[in-house]
């Protein structure tokens, strides 16, 4: 029995290491290439000789790169703040109030959550650029976030449904109205869910390529990192080392953020799929 257990342990962990290599090696190759010289990046070498740390600095100093960084951060931070604050009351109403049309409303939330952005992009583009003259800015992406984000609403609602009604009722007996009960009682309890949806929203904005491509492609001053990265590649099409250095710099913030907020993240993912 003892030997069988040991064998099982070894088998499981070897399989785990093999799988982990598949997931980690791409990062390692990308990172190592980012530190090579131009010529070495075109050879079969896997290990940089010497380590050119200044590649990362060179990329940061490329005209535009820091602007794109700033734009991404602005889009992600403001977008997240707007989306979360506007979605909380909606999620609260869908979870805690009983009214006619509630399940229809929730069905529409889920439908819009699953809707590819391309379905409505043509009229939206005409609306923002021709009627409101916002071509070449990220505002057409940021402003709609103030009107509730379907995914955020859905996730928060899933969480709020699991908080017993009695908390709201007790708050009302203490003289709170619904708004106060939401702010003072429910929101503190929903902190893990709120931080999870905030992270998802941040990542969504940071990773968004289609939105900036539609609205900002003709104005490089408004590009985001995700959009600019690809044109960076085009400009340096033979320099894989600098391209990979830029890629590292685009990936770094999300990965660093993950290490700080691992738990919130994992909780958020389970919330989407498991708790119905």
């Amino acid at each position, binding site marked *: 029995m003892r030997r069988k257990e040991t064998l099982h342990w070894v088998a499981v962990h070897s399989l*785990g290491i093999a799988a982990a290599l598949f*997931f980690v090696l*791409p990062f390692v190759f990308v990172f190592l290439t980012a530190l090579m010289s131009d010529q070495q990046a075109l050879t079969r070498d896997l290990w940089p000789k010497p380590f050119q740390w200044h590649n990362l600095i060179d990329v940061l100093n490329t005209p535009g790169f820091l602007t794109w960084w700033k734009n991404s951060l602005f889009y992600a931070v403001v977008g997240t703040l707007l989306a979360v604050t506007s979605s909380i009351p909606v999620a609260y109403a869908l979870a805690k109030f009983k009214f006619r049309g509630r399940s229809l409303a929730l069905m529409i939330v889920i*439908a819009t959550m699953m809707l590819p952005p391309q379905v409505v992009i*043509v*009229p939206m583009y005409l609306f923002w650029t021709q009627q409101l003259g916002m071509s070449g800015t990220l505002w057409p992406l940021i402003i709609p976030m103030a009107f*509730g984000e379907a995914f955020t609403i859905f996730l928060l609602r899933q969480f709020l449904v699991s908080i017993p009604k009695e908390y709201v009722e007790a708050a009302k007996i203490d003289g709170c109205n619904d708004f106060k009960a939401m702010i003072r009682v429910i929101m503190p309890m929903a902190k893990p869910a709120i931080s999870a949806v905030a992270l998802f929203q941040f990542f969504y904005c940071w990773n968004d390529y289609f939105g900036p491509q539609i609205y900002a492609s003709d104005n490089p001053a408004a590009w985001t990192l995700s959009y600019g990265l690809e044109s960076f590649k085009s400009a340096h099409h033979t320099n894989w080392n600098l391209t990979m250095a830029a890629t590292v710099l685009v990936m770094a913030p999300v990965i660093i953020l993950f290490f700080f907020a691992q738990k919130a993240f994992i909780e958020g993912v389970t919330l989407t799929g498991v708790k119905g």
Partner: protein
Amino acid sequence: MTSFPATDEAVRIAAPAQGSLRRKRRRETLRNLAFLSPWLLGVGLFFLYPLFSTIYFSFVKYDGYTPPTLVGLRNWKYVFTDFPNFWPAMENTVWLVLIMVTLRVAFGLGIGLLITKIKTGAGLFRTAFYLPYLAPPVAATMSFAFLLNPGTGPVNNILGALGLPQPGWFNDPTWSKPALTLLAIWGIGDLMVIFMASLLDVPKEQYEASELDGAGPLRRFQHITLPNISPIIMFAVVTGIIQAMQYYTQPLVAGKVASGVIGGSGQQFEPGYPDKSTLTLPQLVYNLGFQRFDIGSASVVALVLFVLSMIFTGLLMRRRGGLLSAED
């Protein structure tokens, strides 16, 4: 006779009660509207209005500048019969659904099972499996375009050193979709977490009981694990199909990088490189609407995408056994 005053009394008591009930209802309706107002506005402005506009645009000839003129079903006929990119995009979607979704679910489940069995360093393994999911799609695609580039990419170098064939990956129409699939499997972290959570939820007693009955690991998986997690597998399959239909950034960026197109403004990239093998429906909307200024045909493709997405979203929400239930 004596009952009259009593009834009067009852009416007098009931009336204000009914009035306050109605007032309470009205207050509740106002409260509901207040809480829902941001979203109600948002749905009207950013969902219903553009959806109806798209339907209207699908029946007009419109370049975005000169006033639209009604052309009936001409755009629909063009997209389905004459537009040379529509059916290849549909074919690619079917390929992605059949192969990519199946492999993603299988690997997600496999990695999920594996992580529940790992006793030492589980946190480290979980982080390793999860991290690629977080990589921004453009960055991940560029990384894979580098790793898999046929000439100097590390993957082909390693394959060559092992004496294995070295595919053209993103530069070869028969290998471009497998390369995209590899990229999609790399970013499996979300499925891994969902499967892991549902596997940990399977009641332990069932395993213990079956072990007493002498069931081996395979039978236990087949008769206990699978039935318990089948709703999650369904969820992963259906959301996977919806994602496959929305696939945009990865195939576009992979095609651009592999073809070596000089991007930015100026030169335009005709999507689908190589040989239409990476075309997807969302790319057609962009190509028709924003590169060819054929808003009518772009709207037709957008509506096809809408109908397909809603069919599968409907599967997710079916009233009984729905996976994203709109009920409590």
